[in-house]
């Protein structure tokens, strides 16, 4: 029997059959890799937390070791809200030992980590910043996603840039000054802004300005949210 490929029923039947078959292929591949993709995402965030808190050298650690540190020494689930802007932060707390984490010991508290995010030069940038328990100094920062120019603004994810934030002052600044500066050169030794300054990336002025802008906004909001006290804090079960 000769096939009539112009028959409308055949056209509809063929289209539906092909669509169903190829959709099934895509769904099967998606389903087969779903767990792995989710694990990749989770591991990426865990590595960022461990690195931001300075709890280990993530480059030398296996995925299982990173997960173990996060599971035993980092506690999430605390949400705080800035009463001024209404912005909410999910706060992670890191502890020196698993026991301290279990008891939520104040003496064993390494610091807090919160999300920092904003517009870069080309696209949104987000990351995690960890600060000491008194909120006065940064422990570290990790930029998780960015689409800045490779080799220029894209270098914000390089270790040398992120490592500069270790120990940078993030206590409330004098009126009229910024919380942190990303500048081409450091202020003189006697200038109080020096402890708040990190080196900008050469040739990436716009990215440096954008990062400094959203970091200043987020750090200010985080300070206000933490200062708002338990009334603004909600601990999830």
């Amino acid at each position, binding site marked *: 029997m000769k096939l009539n490929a112009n028959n409308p029923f055949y056209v509809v039947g063929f*289209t539906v059959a092909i669509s169903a078959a190829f959709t099934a292929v895509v769904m099967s*591949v998606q389903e087969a890799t779903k767990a*792995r993709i989710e694990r*990749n995402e989770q591991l990426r965030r865990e590595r960022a937390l461990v690195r931001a808190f300075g709890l280990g050298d993530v480059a030398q650690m296996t995925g299982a070791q990173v997960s173990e540190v996060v599971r035993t020494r980092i506690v999430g689930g605390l949400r705080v809200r800035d009463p001024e802007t209404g912005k909410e932060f999910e706060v992670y707390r890191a502890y020196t030992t698993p026991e301290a984490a279990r008891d939520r010991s104040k003496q064993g508290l390494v610091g807090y980590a919160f999300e920092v995010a904003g517009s870069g030069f080309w696209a949104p940038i987000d990351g995690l910043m960890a600060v000491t328990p008194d909120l006065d100094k940064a422990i570290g920062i990790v930029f998780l*996603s960015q689409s800045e120019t490779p080799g220029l603004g894209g270098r914000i994810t390089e270790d040398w840039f992120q490592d500069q934030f270790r120990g940078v002052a993030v206590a409330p600044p004098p009126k009229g000054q910024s919380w942190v500066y990303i500048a081409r050169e450091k202020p003189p030794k006697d200038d109080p802004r020096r402890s708040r300054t990190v080196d900008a990336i050469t*040739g990436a002025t716009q990215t440096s300005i954008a990062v400094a802008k959203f970091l200043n906004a987020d750090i200010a909001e985080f300070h206000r949210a933490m200062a708002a006290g338990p009334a603004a804090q909600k601990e999830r079960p």
Partner: protein
Amino acid sequence: MAAPAAKANARLQLFNQLWTDNAVFRQVLGICSALAVTNRMVNTLLMCGGLVWSTVMTNITVSALRRYMPQRVRMMITVLVIACYVIVVDIAIRAFFPDIHRVIGPYVGLIITNCIIMGRAEAFAIKNPVVPSLFDGLGAGLGYSAVLMAIALVREGLGFGTVFGVALPAREAWWSSWTIMVMPPGAFFVLALVVWWARGYAMAREAAPADAKKAKGAPA
């Protein structure tokens, strides 16, 4: 077993797509991704792998379905087939190379609209058997990949001082970063140079036999 004529046809088709009718420097197709993903060789390699896979599989599928495919929905079905294979590539890169996926992810999805794939399916696979179509797709994909890898080699070398992420020897002594090479305009310059060289070389080769004939016929 494939007949000798079909074998020769397949081999010819592979070579044609690799060089004679190269998609990038002969037909100027697939330029968007040539500009977007060529500042790192590893990223380019994965992108090329995705395109080769999509071109080959689309050609095979379209060729296998050609007798049954209704003409009026032909292009719609072809786009569906291409989209399916590209999504599979996208998922695979996201699962196994998550760091690279974050950089080239948006461009992998755009393989669906790459003119090379639709072009080869419409121009060749829709009216030819599976084996020559496979080689046609392979040739088109590899031809595209060869040009992209050449561009990436120049851009990564000059822009980052590395090849496949490995620092060039003693680069501190002689290398200075060409910022333009890591930005999209750098790809325009390198692509233009590649097209210039390839077309010049091809024209010189084509002209050589004619010149030889003239020289033979000329009086001593």
